């Protein structure tokens, strides 16, 4: 592979990322599956980088999952998006940062629609006015939260306590970067690095000392794919898609999978358990599975955040082996302790996937 060819593509796909004063919007599923990741993101931005991030208790889902499952019509989703924009304006913010890749795709799609079909925007204005008596303006800057971490990757590296390096061998950890499909495959120009060779996560890995693993099924869907999972009869496709990816990356022996999409983070984590139960196989050498973490979860580890406060115990594939490889100081005995040391109980161990 010629690195200069990829760098040329990265040069073609750069975008403006605001450097402060963000209006933060949560993901529906991420705060359920990995509640610590949003908290970690906010902690990094506010406490480590000193940024102004506003979170509004009144913001709602973008309804993207319903839209992609064809239960939410397009005029409705445009109005919901417009309402969230209106809230942003009411609080005096102009830089909108959704933490969900599906939402990011939805916002890009709605803005693009309004650009090409201004009459749709006017209709939406009327709908919003009738429904809520609100007015809205488009954001000045709309990027995904992983774009923000990408922008400050070097600052994070400078403040990090650890690197993506094996403490015993001194070699960079091998990291698979998995980009959510809706991040750039719909609008390549909206993704850092474009759709074919995205740089938004590989840039983090390199800045933080790791080595990016390229593997044949890199572009393949994680298996979430709304039609694959939400249509119950299609769930076989979902796990088959994940299996295809794991089989493809297995020969490269990755130490970590880093994701920027809540769905990808969940499915690439949980399906490893399901595949282990179904086939008696894991895709690493030791039966632990391949840890799958979001970008800010990785950043949190490197910055020295307590892994359990960051919610890393919510992952099915245990992160302990990864923490040990990096040399993170942590207490494994409080992994399943709640606030005030309350014992939450250790989940039942699977039959095949080793669990700590």
């Amino acid at each position, binding site marked *: *592979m*010629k690195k200069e060819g*990829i760098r*040329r593509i990265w040069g073609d796909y750069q975008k403006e990322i605001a450097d402060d004063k963000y209006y933060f919007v949560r993901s529906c599923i991420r705060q359920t599956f990995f509640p610590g990741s949003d908290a970690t993101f906010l902690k990094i931005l506010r406490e480590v980088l000193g940024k102004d991030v506003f979170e509004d208790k009144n913001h709602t889902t973008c309804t993207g999952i319903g839209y992609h499952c064809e239960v939410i019509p397009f005029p409705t989703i445009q109005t919901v998006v417009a309402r969230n924009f209106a809230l942003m304006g009411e609080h005096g913010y102009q830089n909108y940062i959704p933490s969900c890749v599906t939402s990011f795709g939805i916002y890009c799609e709605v803005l693009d629609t309004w650009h090409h079909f201004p009459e749709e925007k006017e209709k939406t204005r009327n709908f919003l006015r009738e429904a809520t008596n609100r007015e809205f303006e488009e954001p000045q800057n709309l990027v995904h939260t992983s774009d923000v971490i990408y922008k400050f990757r070097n600052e994070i590296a400078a403040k990090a306590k650890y690197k993506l390096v094996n403490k015993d061998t001194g070699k960079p950890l091998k990291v698979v970067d998995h980009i959510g499909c809706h991040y750039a495959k719909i609008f390549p120009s909206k993704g850092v690095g474009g759709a*074919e060779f995205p740089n938004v996560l590989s840039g983090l890995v390199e800045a933080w000392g790791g080595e990016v693993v*390229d593997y*044949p*099924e890199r572009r393949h869907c994680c298996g979430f794919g709304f039609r694959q999972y939400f249509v119950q009869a299609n769930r076989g496709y979902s796990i088959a898609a994940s299996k295809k990816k794991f089989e493809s990356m297995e020969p*490269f022996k990755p130490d970590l999978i880093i994701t920027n999409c809540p769905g990808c983070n969940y499915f690439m984590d949980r399906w490893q358990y399901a595949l282990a139960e179904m086939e008696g196989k894991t895709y690493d050498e030791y039966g632990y599975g391949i840890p799958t973490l979001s970008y800010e979860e990785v950043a949190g580890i490197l910055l020295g955040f307590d892994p359990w406060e960051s919610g890393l115990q919510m992952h099915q594939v245990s992160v302990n082996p990864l923490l040990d490889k990096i040399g993170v100081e942590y207490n494994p005995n409080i992994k399943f302790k709640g606030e005030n040391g309350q014992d939450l109980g250790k989940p039942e161990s699977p039959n095949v996937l080793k669990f700590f």
Partner: protein
Amino acid sequence: MSKKVAIIGGGVAGIEAAKKLSEFGYEISLFEKDTELGGHVAKWDRLFPNQRRAQEVVDILQKDLEKIQVYKSANVQSINRENGSFSVNATGKSYPADAVVVATGFELFPAEKKEEYGYQIFDNVITSADLELMFKKFGKPQTVSGVNPSRVAIIHCVGSRDEKVNRPYCSKVCCVTAVKQAIEIKESLPNCEVFNFYMDLRLFGPGYEELYKKAQTMGVTFVRGRLSETSELEGGRILVKAEDTLSSKPLKMSVDMVVLMVGMSPNPENNELFNGVGLAENSDGFLQVNDYHTEPTKSQIEGIFIAGACSGPNNITDSINAARSAAMDAHKFLTRN
């Protein structure tokens, strides 16, 4: 004193136009930006449909150029028109002309724009032009590590009939080039498997259909389906994903080499060169001719004539015919009244 004609571009069309106008007695200045004449043809190894050496055609065309003033490595910066006469500004000098023949040709589609195909990223993804250079140099294809490929995928329509990269038109010659190159791979490496991935086979010229049949009898496999993406496997092999649209099934295979059949794109210099004199572009970005059916080598500007692939994809024969037609049009213009 004889009248002067400037020819912009020293490919096959430019050379032929220069020679014909010289035979009519005009004083010819031929401007070529490269160090040698012959354009793209001079870089090719063999030609369809008879696998004749490309250099042979270039050599024939280059005979009897003594009366023509040839300027090589000459970058034409602009053309000005005043009181019915022209001045061609090249490499810092101004050359007067009574008529101009534009033969600036085309550029090969930059395959790296199809990012998903991995050109300039994966070592063993090459273009049809790269393969011709390999044939010139080694007489056969070889991978970046210098070994003979045992399986090659040839991808048709790269930068042709593809609205995603703003090339909606057919480049006309890529299908037959793909068939020719498939045959040449089999001839040089008989045990190599060759797979041609095509949308439709557009083989319009004499001898082309026979070439297609020859490829089939030699064991070349034709798969109707467009390439989806490539990935690199360990060891530099390439994983190809496509759809076989005849069997309606997705297809995945590993090959040692992928050859992208790059189409013809408008010469990007045309805009800057000819906007000043008012030459327009057609909907595909090539130079607009006055009447596609009846005046295919006249431009919309009096005194400027168009020859070869600068007005759209052409094969060598059609480019030479266009050059002769442009020469006739120019002669008629110069002898008016």
